[in-house]
């Protein structure tokens, strides 16, 4: 997918683990892992809202469009 999820970078910058984030926003670790590894097919606004609030970031900091290269 051309949309890259930069959750790993954000967590690293804030010295926060995925488990801590999951606890803070009330999401399961499994679902958050799906998002982190780029396997999610869609994201709810409520999830985006909770992550942005917990990490003090903008949606654009979390998601980025990256051109897909032809193999």
């Amino acid at each position, binding site marked *: 997918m051309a949309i890259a999820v930069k959750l790993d970078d954000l967590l690293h910058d804030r010295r926060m683990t995925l488990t801590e984030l999951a606890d803070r926003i009330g999401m399961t670790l499994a679902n958050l892992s*799906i*998002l982190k590894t780029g396997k999610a097919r869609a994201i709810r606004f409520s999830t985006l809202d909770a992550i942005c609030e917990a990490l003090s970031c903008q949606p654009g900091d979390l998601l980025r469009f990256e051109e897909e290269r032809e193999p």
Partner: protein
Amino acid sequence: MSKPAPPSAALPIAHALLRILIILNWAMVPVILALLFLLPNEQWILKAFGLFPSPDAARLVMGMRAIAALGLVGVPLNFVVLKRLLAIVDTVRAGDPFVSANATRLQTIAWVLLTLQLLSIVIGAIAKSISTPAHPLHLDAGFSINGWLAVLLTFLLARVFAEGALMRDDLAGMV
């Protein structure tokens, strides 16, 4: 987020009922085979209808045998319907009915119901042809508007389940 539906007694009852119907359906095979081949059914049928050997009586016996043979064809068809219904009930019990397998099952059920309706028309036609004013034969077979509506409804349900399964797949990847 909507709450999951509370457990209902309907599903275990449906499961048990379908299992009983599957057994009863197969139990019909030896009964029909016995009627066709083992019992001295010609004399038995003549006696039951109060008939004496005649061309009309022979036609009646022949017709009844044809209906019994068609009934035998109906047994595996009924099994296909019951077995798939049971599988669908089990997926509902497991809490995940909107899967593409259920759409396929409903599609199969719809085609089998259509075949059973056609079979019913043939049986109804045979019954009508062997029925005489002196010995009327009333069989619950033939064209049934309810039966054809059930066929249509099942095809529609199959489509609904196919769409539901696609939506479920989409939802599975949502966080």
